[in-house]
């Protein structure tokens, strides 16, 4: 216990190093089947050992088990997560989002894989830790799934995140072997990365909020709404359009509603012509339809304004 306490005092620099190590491990796991199996098995063992009765001491419990584990790297990895669970603050959320932004700026195909992989692990760990039990090992990819976007790029994501999509959830149910790839038509690589970023965040928050008090849940929901707004505000209109079409096709209702609300906010307070400019839409109304529209505006408006 004392050793665990001491390690909890690790500096931010060490935490950063730890996160990097996790990233590296992810890369290794994605290239080696044997390594992946080993990692999944290790997590499974810990999760099986934890009971729901120990829920309140979950983080501490993990620490103890970590001490007992002979493998040094496992110890550090679990320890890091424990600390995060204890010390999570809004600032860290901001930093995390910022970090993702940096990755997005420098994105290559390999980094796409690494980034999604890292988030996937986190989501899996959170789910298992909260539930206090592990899924059967025959679940596809040990709770990770491989998706191929319409442009041929491969993306790894957690099953929990992907299942926010009705379509992906159905596809995943048909996956038989761990190394089978789910093909996602009509959604290109950058758009799928953005979709998975949204889904991963929501899956993480849902897992973390499970079993918490009503007050904590309300706080988490409010923070998530703010995250959604920031998330959409970062996008160009073109990216927003692609995300909108993708969320409609993949049936991710929460994301669809959030984008619809943002589009509605763009429309409010604008004249018809201003709406066309905002969305880059050509006016293809026939002269008759245009005349009808003008007449409707005259009839609807007590104080006629030419721009109305």
């Amino acid at each position, binding site marked *: 216990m004392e050793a665990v306490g001491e390690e909890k005092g690790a500096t931010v620099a060490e935490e950063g190093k730890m996160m990097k190590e996790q990233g590296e491990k992810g890369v290794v796991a994605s290239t080696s089947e044997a390594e992946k199996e080993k990692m999944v098995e290790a997590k499974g063992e810990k999760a099986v050992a934890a009971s729901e009765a120990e829920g309140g001491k979950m983080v501490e419990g993990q620490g103890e088990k970590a001490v007992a584990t002979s493998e040094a790297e496992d110890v550090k990895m679990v320890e890091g997560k424990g600390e995060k669970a204890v010390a999570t603050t809004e600032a860290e959320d901001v930093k995390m989002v910022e970090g993702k932004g940096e990755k997005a700026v420098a994105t290559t195909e390999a980094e796409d894989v690494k980034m999604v992989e890292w988030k996937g692990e986190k989501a899996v760990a959170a789910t298992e830790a909260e539930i206090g039990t592990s899924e059967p090992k025959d679940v596809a990819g040990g709770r990770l799934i491989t998706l191929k976007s319409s442009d041929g790029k491969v993306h790894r994501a957690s099953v929990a995140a992907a299942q926010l999509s009705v379509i992906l959830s159905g596809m995943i149910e048909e996956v038989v072997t761990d190394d089978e790839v789910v093909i996602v038509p009509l959604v290109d690589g950058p758009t799928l990365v953005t979709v998975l970023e949204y889904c991963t965040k929501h899956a993480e928050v849902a897992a973390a909020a499970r079993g918490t008090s009503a007050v904590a849940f309300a706080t988490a929901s409010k923070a998530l709404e703010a995250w959604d707004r920031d998330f959409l505000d970062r996008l160009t209109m073109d990216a927003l359009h692609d995300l909108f079409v993708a969320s409609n096709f993949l049936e991710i209702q929460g994301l669809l509603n959030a984008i619809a609300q943002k589009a*509605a906010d763009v429309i409010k307070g604008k004249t018809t012509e201003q709406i066309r400019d905002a969305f880059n839409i050509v006016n293809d109304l026939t002269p008759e339809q245009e005349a009808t529209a003008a007449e409707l505006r005259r009839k609807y408006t007590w104080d006629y304004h030419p721009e109305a």
Partner: protein
Amino acid sequence: MDASEETRDWAELPRDALLAVFHSLQHADVLMRAGQVCRPWRRAAREEPELWRRIDLRRRAALSTSILYHLDVMARTAVTCSAGQCEAFWAEDFVDDTFIFFLSHRATGLRSLRLISCNISKQAALNEAITRFSMLEELELSLCSGATTASGHYNLADTCTAAAKACRNLKCLRLNKYRFHRRSGYDGDSEAMEIAKMRGLRCLQLFGNSLGNAGLAAILAGCAHLESLDIRHCFNVEVNDETRVMCARLQTLKLPDDSMDGYDLSFGNPEMNAGIPGLDFPHNAEMNFGFRGDILWDSW
């Protein structure tokens, strides 16, 4: 992120996605602006009755923009677009006899009807319209004005009779006046006696109503399922032990002297002097003091 030079085509969004945007807008903005941007958006605005299941043209909803709209024309267009599938119609200010007739023939599936500050000159027209809304579950007739009865008071007892008979599913009723008036020699319980016939009522709001303790007792006896009652500013009701016992079974209760918190309509101070004519009542046109005033005065 991959910077694509291709411009996205918002005009051809999938219909479901576009409808989600329209659902996030006020009906006025859909009709007046978004629905006139291009042909696909126009088709979506006009060909999807689903958009018009719930039409809300109350003052704060309809005037989200700075331009005043002619709400009557807009309302008729909206009801027409609903293609008979309108379930909720909420409006303020513009509803009159001709509109209520139009509504009763084009939206017979209504479940919720809320009319605020409407001007019905022929109450028989309103009563006839009510009988066509047999699916109604919620009805509001607040701050209404129109032809007064012989006693000089706008009374909705006959309308309540029609509603009780035709709307068997009615669960929520709001009949709010602008202000309470105390009158002598007037049967204030006539509306209450008809409300008592609405057996399935669960929620009742009667701001400024003239009912007394007898009317209240009739309502509580007739509406066995009543859960929520609001009789603020109903100053003919004397709150005593018997009243409290009768009301004990209610989940929510607001009594005549309770605070106005949460009440979202405009209201005036009560007129408590029974013997003085309500000079500020705008629709008491018959009270002409310049001609034969002596006779009118004697009648009070």
